[in-house]
Every structure is written in C-alpha cells, then in structure tokens.
C-alpha cells in the first residue's frame, strides 16, 4: 500500500476561502452563549440554523453538482468539519453527511437523483443507521436482515445511535441478505413498522435515536443498487476522515480555552501557565492536535487524489484524533480545576462530544487492529 499524499495536500485558495467563510459564519452565528441558549431551550433541532447551513452549501459540500451538491472535495470537508467541531454545531449534520455519502456510493443514478438534491438543499433530513446494539463497525457483524418477499423486501433489526434519527425523513441502513451479502436500503420515514425512539445522548448537541425495523415491507426501489458491503466500507472511510477532522476542531477549541485560562487564572501570585505541571500538558495537547490534524488532512488529500491509501490514513486519523480529543478534554477539565468541574465552564460540552465521538465509526483499538493487519500481515 502506498501512503501517498500530494505534497501540498492539494490545498488551494478555494480551501482558504471556505475556512474563512465557515469561521466567520459560525463565529457570529454560534458563539457559546447562543449554543447554551439553544440547549437550555431544549430544542433538539434548529430549523433556522439548518436552513442557513443548507444555503451555505454545506449539506451538499461533497455531493455531485448534478444532484445539487457543491461538488467540492474531501479537503474542503476536512476544513469544514474542523470548523464545525470547534463550534460544536448542534443538529443532525453528521447523519445527513453520512447518508449522502452512502447514497452516492451505493445508489444508482436514478436513486441518487431521487434523494440527493433534497438532502443537499436541506429539505429532507437524512441519516445513516450504522450501529447495532452490541454489534461492530464491520459489515461482517451485521445482524439486521433483508428478506425478499413478493418482489420487495422485509426488513428486520434494530439500529442505535442514529444521529438525528428522530428528525429524519430518510434513513439509509445496512441489512444482511439471505446470500450473506450486505445491502443498503433507503427508507422514507415515517413507514409502517419502523419505530423511532429518542435516545438520551450524552452530547446534547448531537441527538440520537434508536430505530427498530419490525418486519418493514419496502419495494425493490428502496434497495440501493451498488454492492452494499463495499459502499458501506467506503462510507466508513469517508466518515472516519470527516469525524476525525471534527474531533481535531473540538480538541483545538479545548486547547485554546485551556491556554487562555492558563494565562488569565492566577494562583500563587502567578498565572497558572507559569507552572510546568500546567504548561507542559498544554504543549502536549497542542502537539497531539497538530499530529491528528496532519492525519486528517492526509486522509482527505488521499481521498481527493483517489489514493487507495485513504483507508489507512482515515483509520489513523480517526484513531489518533479520538484519543487526542479524549486526552484534551481530560486535561481541559483538570487544568480548569474546580471551575472545570462545573456546568458553567464550556469544557464539558467538548467533553461530551469527545466521549460520544470516540467510539463512533470505530475507536482507536478497532482501527489499530485493522491497521496492524494491513501492516503486519501484508507484504
């Protein structure tokens, strides 16, 4: 396997523009006070924000232009996810993103034409139901089933941790067919036999749901055309790259919060950042953030270059970014001391996001296991 990433990561002026735009918009639209107000109000889904994000073209950022997307690349997405991660943008964005990718990977031209434009426009909230309770992230651990009946299918199984599941009007999910192969289905909601139950997510900015398929009958057009296993794997690679970028952004925010606190807060007549027990962990945090960012950019650039190394870089990025974020929030609370332990201190929102996103799409142990296979069992 070649670990080739273009020398300049394919970075252009266009990428810089997107970063500037995202940072400006989110900085104005979602300062922490606004986010706190939204959460205090208990709103799971902010229609206004969703509409604005759609208008910015973010919901279709990497979707083809012919289906209403912006047709931009993965490094664009990396940058956007970093910025969104920094601001803990609330809502079902991640679900919509993954569903769009899965549809593009597995859907026929007509299936894509049917769904993608509405997703890109934000008219339809879509999501990808990936996790099964007690299951794994690899297709071979799937237990949900799709059985052919009368020219259509009967779907059975339970999915959990479905981002924005309760707000979605389209869910893409994987099922095992009698042949043993995996197939992806796109199911409009509500549909008879599909039960949706809100979960209490540790991360209030990322509401999730359990979805039950209790003998759901769907027509043949619901089954996405392409090979489901490969499409699911490709979606996960892209999802890992995107989620890793979001984790990097979150860790970056924690780093800045901690840095500022270490400069402002005085104890023993000095800013606490004077003390190496505070200073050095912050430096290690910064190094971790920068290293994980490099892998996230590498994964994105490899995807843009169509390199088969993208899988390696995406797994590396997700593994490292997850651990870096977890470590950043741990230090983040600790260095803030008693204040860090309160709801008033912003760190705990990142803490929750870090805890939520670490296992999603596979944790570091999972990805290192796969990486070890590629490294040690190949050649």
């Amino acid at each position: 396997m070649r670990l080739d990433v273009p020398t300049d990561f394919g970075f252009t002026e266009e990428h810089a523009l997107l970063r500037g735009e995202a940072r400006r918009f989110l900085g104005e639209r979602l300062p922490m006070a606004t986010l706190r107000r939204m959460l205090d109000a208990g709103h799971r889904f902010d229609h206004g924000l969703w509409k604005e994000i759609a208008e910015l073209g973010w919901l279709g950022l990497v979707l083809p232009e012919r289906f209403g997307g912006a047709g931009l690349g993965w490094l664009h997405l990396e940058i956007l996810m970093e910025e969104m991660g920094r601001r803990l943008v609330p809502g079902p964005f991640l679900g919509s993103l993954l569903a769009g990718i899965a549809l593009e990977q597995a859907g026929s031209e007509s299936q894509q034409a049917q769904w993608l434009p509405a997703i890109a426009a934000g008219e339809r909230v879509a999501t990808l139901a990936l996790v099964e309770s007690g299951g794994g992230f690899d297709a071979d651990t799937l237990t949900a089933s799709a059985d052919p009946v009368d020219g259509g299918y009967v779907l059975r199984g339970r999915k959990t941790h479905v981002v924005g599941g309760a707000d979605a009007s389209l869910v893409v999910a994987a099922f095992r067919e009698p042949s043993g192969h995996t197939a992806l289905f796109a199911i409009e909601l509500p549909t008879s036999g599909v039960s949706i139950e809100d979960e209490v997510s540790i991360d209030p900015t990322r509401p999730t749901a359990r979805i039950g398929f209790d003998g759901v009958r769907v027509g043949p057009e619901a089954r996405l055309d392409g090979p489901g296993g490969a499409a699911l794997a490709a979606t996960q690679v892209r999802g890992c790259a995107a989620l890793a970028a979001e984790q990097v952004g979150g860790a970056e925010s924690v780093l800045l919060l901690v840095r500022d606190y270490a400069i402002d807060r005085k104890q023993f007549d000095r800013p606490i950042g004077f003390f190496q027990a505070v200073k050095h962990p912050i430096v290690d945090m910064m190094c971790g953030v920068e290293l994980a960012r490099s892998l996230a950019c590498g994964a994105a650039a490899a995807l843009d270059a169509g390199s088969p190394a993208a899988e390696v870089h995406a797994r590396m990025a997700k593994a490292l970014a997850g651990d870096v974020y977890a470590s950043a929030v741990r230090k983040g609370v600790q260095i803030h001391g008693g204040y860090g332990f309160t709801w008033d201190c912003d760190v705990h929102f990142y803490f929750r996001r870090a805890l939520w996103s670490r296992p999603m799409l596979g944790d570091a142990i999972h990805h290192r296991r796969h990486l070890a296979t590629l490294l040690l069992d190949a050649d």
Partner: protein
Amino acid sequence: MSRPEEATESKENAEFRREVRAWIAANRPSDPGFKLPQSFLEVESDRQFEFLRDWQRKVYEAGYLGLDWPAEYGGHADPHKRQRIVSQELNRAGAPFLVNVIGLQWAGPTILAYGTEEQKQRFLKPILSGEEIWCQGFSEPGAGSDLASLQTSATPSGDGWVVAGHKVWTTLAHVAKWMILLARTDPAAHKYAGISYFLFPMEAPGVTVQPLVKMTGEGGFNQVIFDAAPMPKDALLGQLGQGWQIAMTTLTFERGAAEGSGGGSTAPTGESVRAVTSLARRMRRDGRSAAEDPVLRDRIAQGWIDEEALRLTAQRARVPGLNMDDRPLATRLMNKLVYSEFGQRITELACEVLGPDAGLWLGDASAPDKAEWPRMYMNSFGMTVGGGTSEIQRNIIGERVLGLPKTK
C-alpha cells in the same frame, strides 16, 4: 476473585465481619425508586438527603459507626480494624454511602485533635448519628490550589466574630448545620499566619447558599456568601492564627493519611475492576464479547493490578517495618493522588468498554448500568480536583516526603 482479608483475620474479627454482613443484608434500604447520588458530592434533593441520613442513623444506632472514636463522645473506642471491617462490608454490599462524610472524615477527626472538651462534647455525637451535617468552607473563587490566599475575613465584633466573604465548591452546604471554615483574622500578618479555623453555624443570618451545577448537569455543591454573618466566640477551633496548620491536618485526613475516620473508607476494595469485568462480559464489540478483546483484556488486567497494588499499599502502610525508613508517610500521603487518578482511568476504561453506548446518558432506558459509567467518569474529576488537585498533591509529596525544593 474473592474477598481478601477474611482468610487470615482473627477469629474474633471474622465473627464480627459475619455479624456486620448479616446486619447489612437484613437492614439495607430497598431501592427508593428515585435516582441516588453516586457520592456525597452530588446530593441534590431533600428526598435523597433524607434517605441517606436515615441510613446513616440506622448504621449508627446499630453500633457500627464511630467504633474507633472515644466512648464519651458517642463512639465505641474499639480497635480501628473493626471500623475498617464495617466500611469494607458496606462498600462490598453496595450499600448507600454515609452522607455526613465531611463530618465523619474531616470535621470530626479535626475536632478530636484540636477541639476543647466542650467542643468535643457538643459536636461529635451528632456527626456520628447524622443529626448534624457538616460542610467545608475552604476554597474561594480566587483561592483554589493557592488556598492560603483566601480572603474571607472573620472580624471580632462584640463577644464574637463577623464573617464576610465567599466560599465555593461547598458540598452539602445546602443541608449542613455546621461548616469548618477558614477565615483571615489578621490581614496584616503573613499569608499563612493570618488564618484561623472556625466551626461556623450555617443557620446564622447573612449566609446565602447558592447551588452550583456540576459538569454532569447535577447539583450537590454550592457557593456560600457571607454578608456580615455573626458567629460566637467559641466558634474558634484551636488558637487564633493556627488555622493553616489545622487545615493542613484536615487535608491530610482528606488526602488519605487518616486513621480514626469514624466510618466511611475511601480505600480501594477491588470493587471497581470487578464491576468493569462484569460490564465487559455484558458488552459486545466487533461481533464478540468485549471480555474477549485482547487489548481490553490487557488493560482490564492492568486495572486489576493497579487496584490490588493500592489495596495492598493501604494495608502495608499499617506495617511500619515494611515502609521506607526515610519516608514513613509515603504510603499514606500518596493514597489520595494515586487512588483518584486510578478511579479516573478505570471509569474512562469502562467508557471504552461500553463502546458507542458510552454515548447514552442518564435517563436513557437502554443505557447499560443506567449510564452510571460516563457519570462516574465525569464525577471522577471531583476527586482529582477537590481536596487539592493532583498537581498540588504532587507538590506536597515531592516536598514533604522526598524533600524536593518548594515550587511556590
């Protein structure tokens, strides 16, 4: 994996342990049907508080609290080992904790050490029975790790004192009748010398208790604002200006060097790893039991090693000949640091064992173990921050135990 001490303890102690175990089994309260706090840091509601206080009273009345306190103050003057047996059995049974922790572990032992006869007569027994709850007024917004920079003042006034200032992270203040209070009595004196130690009546006028919300979203601790709040002359503990020295003693109790804590052990008992083991057997990961994942197994085994090492270190601390001659306090002073960081590691590991289900929070119907693990992980920072952060602990151990130069 089973109970440590029993096999080798004296016949008498073994008999006592059996008695205690039987009593707990027969008397422990049934599930109250509402969420209970995980520790004394998060008692929010009256019903939680009353439930817990009832339980403490019941334990006390059965004769299982204050075993190592003098009989004249409501204790039993028994060898300390017996109190440890009770604590162990309470922990192992998963019985509710004893809510008056600050009284039992810090205020009580400090009063025993520094109080006048009147103070001992007045305060100790209601601590054991749970009748009078205590809180601790040490930290302030500007005085956390640098506790000695505290600004709350106690000014002589008439026959007593008047208190003005602002304390934070005052666990249990909303239900407490008394506070152990550090206040500056001599603004002109050296930072450390100007501080005195008081037993402050929370019912005094001019006291405002405001709840703070923790990172978990739960209550349980507070800030306390003193606006010319009066206290009587005999509120002073020890000598005027001796406050810092007494506080260091209290913090040593808190930091795990305590014997004579009246009840409520914080020593590890092997229960954490046992619980994570049970969790790993129930969770699945990549299509098999999480207990079969070799990397998780390796890390759970490390947790087992860590917890057993802590347990045996606490045990060894009581055998002088097995401690280092030149640092006899090492095994005691390190307990708070090592145990709190172990608690953080093991609850974070539990979250990793949970996999995606670590993302389910309190109140979710399907959350494994009712989402207690991520909650415990968050609450673990109360331990690595409260009572002197881990960073301050390392300073203290480095300076007091190893003789390294002072950082401040």
